[in-house]
């Protein structure tokens, strides 16, 4: 767990130790940047939010309880900043797609060639990345936390501040949407 690994650094940062801050920054820089980039897409905006996140971390680190999971706390700080940014820029842009009761892959032939293995791996990864980018921010976020950050559902619930059941249903819907988008893009791409 993160508290045991970063605990000493966090206490030192609470006292204002620049070396400890450097260590914390190095430990989380890539993961945090990737997470923010999944929210906003544009690197310039992600840069800005990355700076804001670390400033906010320093503002509030005195209130961080070392017994808690620091990863969840840090990502929750970043999340609030990303959401504030998106709300200011595009009100309503966080909404999840509506459920119409239909399976998302409806319209795609169920016996369509499932020959995913025929497509080159790099092309597939590119399509998955495109499909991920086409998802609403809340879906991109939960997919990133689950698969890229490899967080457990309980940790995700802490970051998102929602019950475990809601995390499960959101992740499930995000995967359904991602799969539908991926299959659609495969068809548009002409890949079998």
């Amino acid at each position, binding site marked *: 767990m993160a508290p045991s690994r970063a605990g000493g650094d966090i206490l030192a*940062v*609470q*006292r*204002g*130790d*620049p070396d400890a*801050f*450097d260590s914390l*920054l190095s430990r989380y*820089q*890539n*993961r945090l*940047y*990737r997470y923010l*980039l999944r929210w906003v897409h544009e*690197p310039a905006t992600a*840069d800005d939010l*990355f*700076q804001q996140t*670390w*400033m906010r971390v*320093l*503002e509030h680190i005195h209130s961080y309880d070392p017994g808690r999971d620091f990863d969840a706390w840090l990502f929750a700080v970043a999340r609030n900043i990303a959401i504030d940014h998106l709300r200011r820029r595009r009100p309503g842009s966080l909404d999840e797609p509506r459920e119409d009761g239909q*399976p998302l892959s409806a319209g795609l032939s*169920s*016996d369509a060639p*499932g020959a*995913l293995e025929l497509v080159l791996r790099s092309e*597939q*990864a590119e399509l*998955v*990345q495109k499909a*991920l980018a086409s998802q609403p921010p809340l879906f991109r976020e939960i*997919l990133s936390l*689950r*698969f*890229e950050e*490899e967080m457990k*559902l309980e940790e995700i619930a802490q970051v998102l501040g929602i019950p475990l059941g809601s995390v*499960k249903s959101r*992740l*499930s*819907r995000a*995967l*359904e949407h*991602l*799969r539908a988008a*991926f*299959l659609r893009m495969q068809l548009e791409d002409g890949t079998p």
Partner: protein
Amino acid sequence: MSEHDHIVRLLPLAGTGDIAPDEIRRVQEHLASCTECRRVSEEYAFLGTTLRGLPTPQPSAELLAQVRVMVAPRLAQKQARNGDALVLAPLVAASWIVALATLPWVRAAGAWILTGWHLPGGSFAHALAIYSVLGFLLASVAALAVGRRASAIGRVQ
């Protein structure tokens, strides 16, 4: 809802192991006999694997340098606050120790002033006066220390 429909709903989370063990068993049993669900399950597994393997974008060196520059004043502020606490805590402790340890002498001095100089008031009043002066001196030292810290923060910012 048919068994097939139920399993279809479970498939997205089955691949990540985020459903109950008995549900996973149920899914596995169904997959053994349902080609369509097996294909969908493989697609979810593929998506999961690919998502895990996506390249990790990295912040630029310039960005990291900017962050370090931005946070430096705040870190200095925290250090200064921490230093204040380190300075003030012994001062407060010392003031209490001095006050309690010197109580008999201060009372004696008060009595001597009262009787020797024929001043009005009890020895307690004089002890109180001397303590006030002592307290004022200690508070001045503490204030000086805090002032020096504050000006150090000002210089950093």
